[in-house]
């Protein structure tokens, strides 16, 4: 629906751009990553995640979040163009 709406409303936006933009949003969804970090912490505190697993996951998520931040900064500075 989203793609369809987008295309109907803005015929100039190519499907590749729309898909690209959705992919970027999903790949670099900072809010979701922050939630995952908090969930990792919670499950560790509840004893459902081992120390090792907690640390590994935390490092992974923090690295992903850092990348996401950089991408969003570039997006907002206009160095990566996404048309919507």
């Amino acid at each position: 629906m989203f793609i369809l709406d987008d295309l109907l409303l803005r015929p100039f936006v190519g499907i590749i751009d729309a898909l690209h933009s959705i992919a970027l949003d999903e790949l670099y969804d900072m809010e979701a990553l922050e939630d995952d970090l908090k969930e990792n912490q919670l499950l560790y505190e509840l004893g459902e995640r081992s120390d090792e697993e907690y640390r590994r996951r935390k490092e992974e998520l923090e690295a992903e979040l850092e990348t996401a931040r950089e991408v969003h900064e570039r997006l907002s500075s206009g160095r990566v163009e996404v048309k919507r």
Partner: protein
Amino acid sequence: MSNRYVYGVVEGDTVEFETEAVAGADRVYTISHRRLGAVVSDIDTTDPEETDEDAQRHDEVLREIMDDDGGTTVVPMQFGMAFESDRELKNVLRGARPAFRRAMNDIDGTVELGLKLVSEADADIDREAIEAAAADRFEPIADQSVTNDLFSDRLVLNRSYLVAEDERETFDEAVADFEADHDDVIVQYTGPFAPYSFVDVKIGAQQ
């Protein structure tokens, strides 16, 4: 180490003790302007990095301030408030005086308690019924409460409660009863904390 890292603001009292403070400092003390005092430690930056360790120290120092001298009311600051100089900090205390006084009134003699209700993995639960049961049990005891982010699908409830010191035991018992009555959720009960979630004073020279 000429900059000052702020934990919170107290009124009328002077707080000073040795402790493990933020960024490796070992002492906290008070910088006062008239009756308001900012509880600080020395730091060599005005933009401290929020590590897990330092975030925890910030919380623990606030808890120590709350326990200081048989109980001190402190308006807590969020992590990361650091000032260039004593003068700058005193200016902030002067400027935000009415806001501090109001916050002080709101939280005097209270603590913040945190409650998370988490469903067991893969459990099929009636979320609404659990939320309603929690509201019935806890809201009458608390002065105020706020909802926090439900950051996991397994979280059924994530709230902070502002509870009068002398209702603490009642609240503890209510949580224990609730836990005994609900096998299908895991209860995570935390605190007491300085009432961060119930004060809205933002200070800072950098902002």
